[in-house]
């Protein structure tokens, strides 16, 4: 349904990035040292203790209705979000003040260096002259969107909608694509069929064995990018109420040693996945931010003997059925997975077989997505296969903060963010290091703090690393050129990625 409200969580794809822009684009495919791409902002700087952020905004930008854009709009947007609890999803939105037409300051209550990517890169600026009139900005579907981006909304039907070139756009000459039509398709099959029939020019579809499917189709291009680290999340913390063999770190390490990651990669990811680091920092991008002794990725082949000796040292003995036992408890754990997530289910089939060779039984439970999220939120699970998602900025901090901080967890039975610290990991030294890393802009200091975190999480291993699944975008090479390639990921090629989509569209060039 029509919802062009860029502040709404159910906004139409394309409203963010194509129509509305944030101040900067933080490319999390590049190392943290890379400068963000300026959009509506041109530069920013922090005060020493990280409580005041000064931003210089772009001059000479017009809204698509012809009104001039100024720092007032930026201040208005931040204050609107701050003052509307339904929109204030971070809870840390600063107070904003426009100093003049091109300068705005954001004032925080505590050091907030780490909020820069979310605030500067994820806050879509709306025009004050229109939004100050809206009685209910949180639920307004914003049927006539007025933005600063390269596109404007043109035609909407529930089955598809069109955005067209914005003649008022500051770099209108760079935009050589006349418009973009978004299709709403149900199911991967229907979307894949359309892509192969050349009815889609840009798509982000999960296609199993994509290399084989695209095979000799040189009219369809493919760019691998980004990562979703596949893990076995374990309800690890007995003190917070977790139960089951996986609360024993030896079991987690043994299971990890028993995994044949190469086979998982081959069967579930068609050899497209990459090795994973036990630190969950990205091996290439974050090379400088990983403790030197932890830079080796997880091994591809299993070490069954190591797994067995880990278990035996921890007091497990081999049972008559080939599964270890301790104090009458069999080493058998339930792994839950969402029904229909084929790559996860396939990976689990393979891992169950691999674990069995090391005397560990994994029992797969396929559950509905809603049940899976709900039981992880509540901590009512033993193992679950899931993903560690990248943060807003190119810094492992966001992963550590989301998945390992005790701020993001709670006792079993209390519903927490099901995409947060569901393993109930709680370690004061990690929490301390997180605070220390967040109160500096100095990457060297951060790296030291990350090393502390990494030592702990590698030792405790509440998430068992499996592989680093690489997503990909597919696009027509017959009609346009200019999509980001693996050699130079100057922006994410993801069709639903924002605000990268607005940058990509400016570089596309029609063929002929």
């Amino acid at each position: 349904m029509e919802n062009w409200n860029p502040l709404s969580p159910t906004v139409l794809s394309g409203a963010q990035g194509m129509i509305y822009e944030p101040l900067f684009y933080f490319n999390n495919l590049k190392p943290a040292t890379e400068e963000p791409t300026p959009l509506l902002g041109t530069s920013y700087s922090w005060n020493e203790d990280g409580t005041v952020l000064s931003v210089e905004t772009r001059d000479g930008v017009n809204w698509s209705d012809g009104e001039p854009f100024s720092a007032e709009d930026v201040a208005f947007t931040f204050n609107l979000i701050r003052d509307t609890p339904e929109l204030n999803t971070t809870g840390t939105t600063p107070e904003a003040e426009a100093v003049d037409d091109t300068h705005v300051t954001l004032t925080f209550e505590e050091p907030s260096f780490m909020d820069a990517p979310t605030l500067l890169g994820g806050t879509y600026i709306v025009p004050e002259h229109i939004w100050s009139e809206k009685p209910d900005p949180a639920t307004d579907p914003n049927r006539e969107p007025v933005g600063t981006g390269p596109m404007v909304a043109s035609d909407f039907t529930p089955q598809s909608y069109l955005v067209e070139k914005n003649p008022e756009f500051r770099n209108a000459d760079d935009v050589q694509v006349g418009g973009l039509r978004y299709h709403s398709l149900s199911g991967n099959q229907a979307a894949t069929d359309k892509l192969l029939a050349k009815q889609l020019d840009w798509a982000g579809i999960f296609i199993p064995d994509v290399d084989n499917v695209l095979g000799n189709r040189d009219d369809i291009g493919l760019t691998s990018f980004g990562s979703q680290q596949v893990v076995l999340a374990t309800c690890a913390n007995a003190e917070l109420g977790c139960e089951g063999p996986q609360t024993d770190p030896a079991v987690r390490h043994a299971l990890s040693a028993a995994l044949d990651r190469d086979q998982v990669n081959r069967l579930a990811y068609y050899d497209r996945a990459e090795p994973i680091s036990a630190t969950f920092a990205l091996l290439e991008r974050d090379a400088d931010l990983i403790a030197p002794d932890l830079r080796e990725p997880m091994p591809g082949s299993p070490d069954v003997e190591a797994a067995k000796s880990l278990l035996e040292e921890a007091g497990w003995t081999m049972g008559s059925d080939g599964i270890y036992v301790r104090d009458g408890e069999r080493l058998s754990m339930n792994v839950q997975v969402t029904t229909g997530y084929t790559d996860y289910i396939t990976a689990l089939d393979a891992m169950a077989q691999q674990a069995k060779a090391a005397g560990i039984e994994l029992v797969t439970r396929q559950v509905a997505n809603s049940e899976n999220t709900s039981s992880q939120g509540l901590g009512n699970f033993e193992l679950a296969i899931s993903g560690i998602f990248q943060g807003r900025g190119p810094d492992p901090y966001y992963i550590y903060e989301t998945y390992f901080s005790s701020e993001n967890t709670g006792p079993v039975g209390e519903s927490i963010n099901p995409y947060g610290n569901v393993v109930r990991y709680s370690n004061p030294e990690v929490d301390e290091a997180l605070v220390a890393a967040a109160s500096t802009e100095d990457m060297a200091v951060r790296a030291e703090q990350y090393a502390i975190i990494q030592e702990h999480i590698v030792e405790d291993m509440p998430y068992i690393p499996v592989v680093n699944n690489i997503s990909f975008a597919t696009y027509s090479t017959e009609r346009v050129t200019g999509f980001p390639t693996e050699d130079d990921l100057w922006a994410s090629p993801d069709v639903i990625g924002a605000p990268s989509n607005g940058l990509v569209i400016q570089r596309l060039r029609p063929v002929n």
Partner: protein
Amino acid sequence: MSSVLNDTMAAAEEGSIEEAAGPRRRRWREPKLLTGAGIVIVIVLFGLLGPLLTQDPYAVDNIGMTPPSGDHLLGTTQTGEDVLAQLAHGTRGSLLIGVMVGAMTLGLSAFFGILGAFVGGILDELFSLLTNIVLVIPGLPLMIVIGSYVEQKSIFLVAGVLALTGWAAGARVVRAQTLSLRDRDYVLATRVAGESTWRIICVEILPNLLPVLSSGFVFSIVFAILGEAGLAFIGIGASDSLTWGTMLADAQNGQALLLGGWWWFVAPGFLIAILGCGLALINFSIDEIINPKLRPARARKRSS
């Protein structure tokens, strides 16, 4: 799925044929019954014995999606699992669901249909009301909603849901038939003679309902197997066992057709169709027993 619903309704309408079962003459030499029974027996044997003879259906292997060969008679899935082994276990699962649903449906429809009609009065009113309500509440959406409520969808749960939403049509047919039997002279005679209600139901009524009940049983097996396949396809089938439905859903999710793995996709669908056909042929023969007018022997030669 719409065809399933239509059939349910058609079956309910046929209940208005108030023709007694009459003298039953079994026609074993009938080709329809023989063919149908033959198909069903072969598939049941495959489901019973197949899993004992085939490989481990969950054993993954690095050879994914290989075409049929000596090692894997029906090829492998995307993870190198043996399709024949999966098919054997899937046959067992689907048949189990079919028989369970058939039995539960039989029990429920017999209970509500016979008891209500025989006792009459307020009980009949209540039972009819319940039956009719279950009949008009749309089944598939209800199954989706109930199915997504339960966390771990065991094969028993799926069977339970299918039976719960599928018994009403049968109950209506049984009720209509019982009503007509109740007022027969010989039943009235036993009532007057002071026989107990249970005895009359068991001795006088049940035997005469056998054709209707068995037709309902066979129909619900087909309904259940198709229903389970549909549920599995939209992602809410039995997740703890292999069935034809889960195999089809896996093949579909693995884009078997697109990747050329037809053996993975075609085999389970083919078996469902063949089994359904076999059961339908049996049902057809039962219909001819219920309704003597349908018997081919009665068809007269026509000039046109």
